[in-house]
């Protein structure tokens, strides 16, 4: 019994020591090296891929007016954002900024809680489609006075009209936009060459896309999809993937003329157009065998490993592709349906309505500065929301931003900004799309269930 007691006490001490050495759960990890130092690491080891680490928390400047800036840029675009903020504090030494980045899912929960509890950050980043959800609860400030038509510094005429329109609600203008990001098609040029495809030409239609996907899909014996003897149970290289199901499916359903609601309170996920769109991607997985079931499949890592030919992905993929030395090409999301459309969104900077005094003045300066850094922001692949900045981009440095940005302006569509949009996505259609693409439900059953769930949410969200 005594040995037992000694053993338990020993274990307790070890547990306490480990617990004491680790940071408390609520405390952010230690500040990592500033983003500006990342290129130096690449120079030191030019032969090794050196993924650019996104600092979770970064401090910029040492000024007396201290701003807290939250965003969900945990991808490699976060590095560019930190660089922009550091540039601001160099030019504005009276201001210091603490940039805190967290995954979008956690970010929304934390942001809402902070807004409700009355201790929000001084600046935060959201998307345009979240405006009705947040503004409807009175936690966003009307930021019309940031624009030159209300005496502010941001020129209205220099912002793409569709972006500006997306920020307006009930006569107010919420936030200042950074970019128009959206959905495109990235591909591996080396795999294109190996498959006998032209690496400078993108598949633009459904037929071309499926044909390319077949050529790019290879089994363990080197047989391509569609060839005699091709073994769909032993695929080593995939032609494509559904990737993030929301933009892939929304883009495709819009192309066929469908949507998740009629924007008058009715769910419309059982329409023929939506069925055609979902069926197209389902068939790529289970009929053509050129795309994997999504569960457990890591698209980015498979792309980095050179085992995925074409990836529907966002404009933010650029830094990852470069960090992993993918010989990439990029083109607009293909026209699969009747009309050429792709999903777009915008990162928008906000301040809470409670911000005042010195901090408000400093936040205005920072927001104004960030919106003028569209060209620097575009190095992360995100096309600027400002017309003059987009037109100043050159193909040698901003190829993906130009290719995708042009397609976003021509065929981009914002999602319907409903006050319960997050619930519609999380609890309405996304789990059902996931069930369909993982073959847990038929297309008809999954869409019927999604429709019922979305309708239920719309009915209760009044």
């Amino acid at each position, binding site marked *: *019994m005594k040995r*037992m007691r000694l*053993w*338990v006490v*020993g*274990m307790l001490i*070890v*547990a306490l020591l*480990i*617990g004491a050495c*680790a940071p408390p*759960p609520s405390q952010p990890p230690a500040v990592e090296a500033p983003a500006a130092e990342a290129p130096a690491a690449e120079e030191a080891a030019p032969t090794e891929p050196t993924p650019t680490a996104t600092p979770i928390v970064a401090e910029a400047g040492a000024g007396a007016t201290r701003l807290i800036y939250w965003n969900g840029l945990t991808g490699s675009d976060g590095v560019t954002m930190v660089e922009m903020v550091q540039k601001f504090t160099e030019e504005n030494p009276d201001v210091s900024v603490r940039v805190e980045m967290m995954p979008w*899912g956690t970010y*929304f*929960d934390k942001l*809402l*809680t902070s807004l*409700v509890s009355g201790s929000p950050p001084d600046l935060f980043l959201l998307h345009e489609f979240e405006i009705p959800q947040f503004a409807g*609860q*009175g*936690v966003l400030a009307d930021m019309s006075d940031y624009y030159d038509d209300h005496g502010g510094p941001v020129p209205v005429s220099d912002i793409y009209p569709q972006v500006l329109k997306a920020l307006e609600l009930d006569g107010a203008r919420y936030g200042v936009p950074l970019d128009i990001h959206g959905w495109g098609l990235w591909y591996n040029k080396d795999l294109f060459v190996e498959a006998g495809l032209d690496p400078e030409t993108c598949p633009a239609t459904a037929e071309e896309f499926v044909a390319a996907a077949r050529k790019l899909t290879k089994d363990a014996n080197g047989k391509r999809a569609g060839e005699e003897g091709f073994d769909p149970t032993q695929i080593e290289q995939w032609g494509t993937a559904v990737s993030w199901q929301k933009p892939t499916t929304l883009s495709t359903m819009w192309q066929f003329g469908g949507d998740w609601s009629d924007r008058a309170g009715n769910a419309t996920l059982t329409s023929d157009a939506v069925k055609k769109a979902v069926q197209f991607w389902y068939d790529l997985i289970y009929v053509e065998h050129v795309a994997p*079931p*999504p*569960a*457990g*499949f*890591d698209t980015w*890592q*498979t792309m980095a490993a050179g085992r995925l030919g074409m990836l529907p992905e966002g404009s933010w993929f650029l830094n990852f592709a470069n960090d992993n030395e993918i010989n990439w090409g990029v083109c607009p999301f293909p026209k699969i349906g009747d009309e050429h459309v792709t999903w777009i969104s915008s990162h928008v900077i906000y301040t809470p309505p409670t911000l005042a005094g010195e901090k408000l003045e400093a936040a205005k300066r920072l927001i104004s500065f960030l919106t003028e850094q569209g060209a620097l922001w575009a190095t992360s692949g995100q096309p600027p929301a400002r017309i003059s900045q987009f037109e100043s981009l050159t193909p040698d440095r901003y190829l993906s931003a130009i290719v995708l940005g042009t397609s976003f302006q021509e065929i981009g569509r914002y999602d319907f900004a409903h006050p*319960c949009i*997050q*619930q519609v996505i*999380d*609890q309405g259609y996304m*789990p*059902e799309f*996931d*069930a369909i693409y*993982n073959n*847990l*439900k038929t297309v008809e059953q999954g869409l019927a*269930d999604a429709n*019922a*769930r979305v309708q*239920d949410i719309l009915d209760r969200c009044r």
Partner: protein
Amino acid sequence: MATELSTTQGHTAHQHRRTWRTPMYTLTNYLFILPFLILFVTFVAGPIFYSFWISLHDWKILAREQPFIGLANYINLMRDGIWWIALRNSLYFAFLTSIINTIFALVVAMLVNAPIRGRDFFRFVFYAPVVLSVAAMGIIMSWMMNTQFGIINYFLVWLGLPPVRWLADPNLVIPSLSLATVWWGFGFPMVIYLAGLQGIPDHLYEAARIDGANTWQTIRHITIPLMMPSIFFVFVTQLIAHFQVFGQPYIMTGGGGPGRSSYTVIIYLYQTAWRYFLMGYGAAIAVALALVILFFTLIQFRIFGRRSVIEY
């Protein structure tokens, strides 16, 4: 004679009858429990009743008024398909994990209770994962169980076996989460069992050996019967804890996938209350889950409670 029987407090029943109504005597008792009572009412009992009160309203935290809607949230919940999916998944996970954990921890405890070389080292190694946070455990296990790049599948393929879609197969996802949870948490019941095992007098085993009992017979007729209070305690506490599973599916399967195959009640509660701020409906989910847990706990008390305590 009856009035002289000793009570658990060391008083005689006669003294007890004489003094229990005395105000000063009662006041002293209440003062002793007052510090705990204040904390209990403030942080446990109060929030429980307040949650029930919230569940009777269309309680949106940012709204100015919270309209009273009676049992509407509970009626909606009974018609809510997601609730039933989440409840089924939670029940499946809780029973599977609790049963495996209860049996596996007992087996390991008996092994590390035996006089084997390096016994303390094994006790330490088996207990060590308990000190991990659920986030650390979840990230480690999701990488290990990754279909494409996971080390478990790497070894399976190396052995000539097909890779397993641990967290990607809807039929395997909950057993996989359960497996990860058992690895993470069996050290704690193991310690409880070790304490229980060391409380069994050696003379019982000696007598059994003299009577010619083999190892299985001593386990069957001595160890297990005498360990029943510990087994009951472990199973009840494990079941209550695992009904409230959240971190494992939230981290390892992206919040309940594939589809809703690992979507649990607490994830539903968390999203409803803290992502959409529908506090009334969230509170109804919480109260309903508490009732479900209470129901299964009472059943266990009925089953295990009938067994008479073996004294030795």
